[in-house]
């Protein structure tokens, strides 16, 4: 237990430092930080509605964070989560609309479609890296834009007749739940949270408990030694991207089947893929870490909406605070250094 506690100390200090610096910025620009944070917290857990909405916000952050973290753990930088998320979203919605099935089949099928689409989209950079040693970072950046334009085209020209969004998915494919709605006063909290938690467990399990995870991590650490030990480096690179992409696709599916219930033409990126990088890194690329980071990240983002309405403070202050927290976590050496000083001083 104390081992976990000590692991948590420096992120915790980072969070506190981030909030403090945020408060200083608010003070310096003539706002009341207590009112500011108060309204933010109100927007996160103010009442059951906000709790529900905060949970909903966190779902895609967890999954996008898992996607980035999984790739990182196996030595790859999947900056293409954004694109995989977009295609996963569309695929899930497509299945949600196109089929007429009982819920027990339809919903899992739609979720699976999202995962598969994301996985396939991530397969491309994985394959190109394995086969041609092309840097996965550029390929996935390029595929982000490609995903954006292609899905927009599909929505407008294939799934609809020049409309901006698809029709709504069938109820049998929806993650929404009257139960959650009733306890959270019509928030859009949905069953995606369960999917996200299952994925957290899956990621932990694959990496820590299976031979596949053993191989994936080994290839990430040292390709030469892995090859020597009889592992297929190429297969593992591709597999890692595919699993990562599946998580990303699921993040999109959660949006498509839960939050929105349709897919719309997008004017630009959702940003969730990039936020996923921050979540993963903040969570030290571990499954549990990602959950905690997503809680923090999603919570702050959800609460931020409330700030301008109640206090007039620009919601960007929350982005600043989040960035600072990430900074301080990254510079944990600095925090440890300060802590050591502090301890010495006390002695």
């Amino acid at each position, binding site marked *: 237990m104390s081992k976990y506690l000590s692991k948590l100390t420096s992120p915790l200090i980072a969070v506190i430092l981030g909030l403090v610096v945020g408060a200083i910025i608010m003070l310096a620009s003539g706002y009341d930080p207590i009112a500011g944070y108060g309204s933010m917290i109100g927007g996160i857990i103010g009442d059951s509605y906000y709790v529900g909405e905060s949970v909903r916000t966190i779902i895609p952050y967890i999954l996008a964070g898992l996607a980035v973290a999984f790739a990182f753990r196996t030595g790859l930088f999947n900056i293409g989560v954004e694109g995989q998320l977009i295609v996963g979203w569309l695929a899930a919605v497509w299945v949600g609309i196109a089929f007429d099935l009982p819920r027990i089949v339809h919903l899992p099928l739609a979720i699976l479609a999202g995962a598969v689409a994301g996985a396939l989209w991530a397969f491309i950079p994985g394959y190109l890296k394995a086969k041609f040693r092309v840097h996965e970072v550029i390929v996935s950046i390029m595929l982000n834009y490609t995903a954006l334009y292609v899905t927009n085209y599909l929505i407008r020209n294939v799934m609809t007749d020049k409309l901006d969004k698809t029709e709504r998915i069938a109820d049998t494919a929806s993650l929404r739940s009257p139960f959650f709605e009733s306890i959270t006063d019509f928030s859009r909290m949905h069953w995606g949270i369960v999917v996200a938690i299952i994925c957290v467990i899956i990621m932990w399990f694959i990496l820590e*408990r*299976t*031979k*596949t*995870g*053993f*191989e994936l*991590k*080994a290839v990430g*650490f*040292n390709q*030469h*030694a*892995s*090859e*020597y*030990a*009889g*592992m*297929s480096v190429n297969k593992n690179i591709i597999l890692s991207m595919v699993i990562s992409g599946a998580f990303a696709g699921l993040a999109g599916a959660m949006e498509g089947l839960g939050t929105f219930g349709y897919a719309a033409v997008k004017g630009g990126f959702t940003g969730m893929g990039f936020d996923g990088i921050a979540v993963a890194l903040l969570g030290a690329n571990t499954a549990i870490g990602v959950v905690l980071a997503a809680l923090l990240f999603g919570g702050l983002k959800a609460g931020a909406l409330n700030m301008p309405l109640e206090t007039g403070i620009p919601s960007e202050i929350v982005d600043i605070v989040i960035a600072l927290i990430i900074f301080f976590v990254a510079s944990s050496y600095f925090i440890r250094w300060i802590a050591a000083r502090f301890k010495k001083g006390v002695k």
Partner: protein
Amino acid sequence: MEYVIEMLNIRKEFPGIVANDNVTLQVKKGEIHALLGENGAGKSTLMNVLFGLYQPEQGEIRVNGSPVKITSPNIANDLGIGMVHQHFMLVDPFTVTENIILGKEPSKAGKIDLKEASEEVRKLSEQYQLSVDPYAKIADISIGMQQRVEILKTLYRGAEILIFDEPTAVLTPQEIKELIYIMKALIKEGKSIILITHKLKEIMEVCDRVTVIRKGQGIGTVNVNETNPNELASLMVGREVLFKTEKSKASPTDVVLEVRELEVKDSRGVSAVRNLDLTVRAGEIVGIAGVDGNGQSELIEALAGLRKSTTGSIKLNGKEIRNLKPRKITEAGVGHIPEDRHKHGLVLDYSVGENIVLQTYYQKPFSKAGILNSKKIFEKARTLIKSYDVRTPSEYTPARALSGGNQQKAIIGREVDRNPDLLIAAQPTRGLDVGAIEFIHKRLIEQRDAGKAVLLISFELEEIMNVSDKIAVIYEGEIVAIVDPKETTEQELGLLMAGSKRTEAGGKQHV
């Protein structure tokens, strides 16, 4: 007496370990002073303190009698101290000249004056007979030349005191000879040298005095002409060491490995191994002797499945295994102690335990239905750590934190424990101390005696002569001679390795 360097009562701690404890080292002008100790004894640490990379917690350093504080390599350079590091400090994509002038570049109007620099490098290399190609890229030159570049780096900065940290561990016998010649020349020019080496023969040959440290403690300094290798070894290890590994006569039986007319191309597409024939029987150790770069690496890689061969056949127990996947070869019964333990042997970020099952993790009992059984894995690790004397805080410690010797022991434990029919050992003792070497040789001979076939590849003639039952000499990718270690001499082997075929052998022979 005049000392150029005095390190008095040096203490250096790392978190949780005292690497140097009250060590004193005094170097006279114009001498070659050996620093001797087991792996992890604290030799490199002491030298890094002298070179300004580490700050000692305690103790005093004097250069030419006056106390100094060496807080950075820059200051060491200014004091005339140069160091050739155990792991070369060369920038691979740079040219020889660029590496030498880095940090002290001659320039004209802000532009590096490469012409002048190369000229200076050429002059230096002539003066000290350190032949290098100033325009070659480091990545393209031999280890021997890389080392000469390292030496030139220190001379370019006007070093008077040179530190060599295990310079011979990576060199071929020829290169070692050259290096010894160079060191003697440097002494004649008035330089002083501190030499770290595990090879007692070298110490006896070139050094004037030797300081021994054991487990971080200074044991003392002796004059080389008043001692002998046995005394040095026991000073260093703290017990008697046997040099000649005891072994009975080999009794080879069935053919285990049979290589016929093998051709392997290197990364540039040139044949590195050609028309190679080789046979290893159960119950014998075949040593491959040869100068580095004669196709040994490519041969091993082809045998292990890490590199595709173009023609020929490789049979293991009569079954063709050529160009199979590494895993298939492993499963067919080949064990392999790789040449480069950091690159191929270990996943340094994995724990010792995980490294121990690096090839067997997917088999029972370590995993079942794709799920790992960490209890079984670490149980196995504990057994091997114990029986192979791997010194590690625990089986959960990352392999990175182990010393080279202990990393090597873990690898050997892993390979031997799989009980392969053929064990390929490539440079198994490179950079290890005499105690560790003794241990490893014993294990190899045990394998032989258990009826296994062992293929040993080494640049150390002494090792080859001591351990092998049969020596195959490789030259330009071909086995040019097979000799019996009891009937040959180092001189003869040296000649064969240099490409002069034995007259009476009359061409190529099959083994």
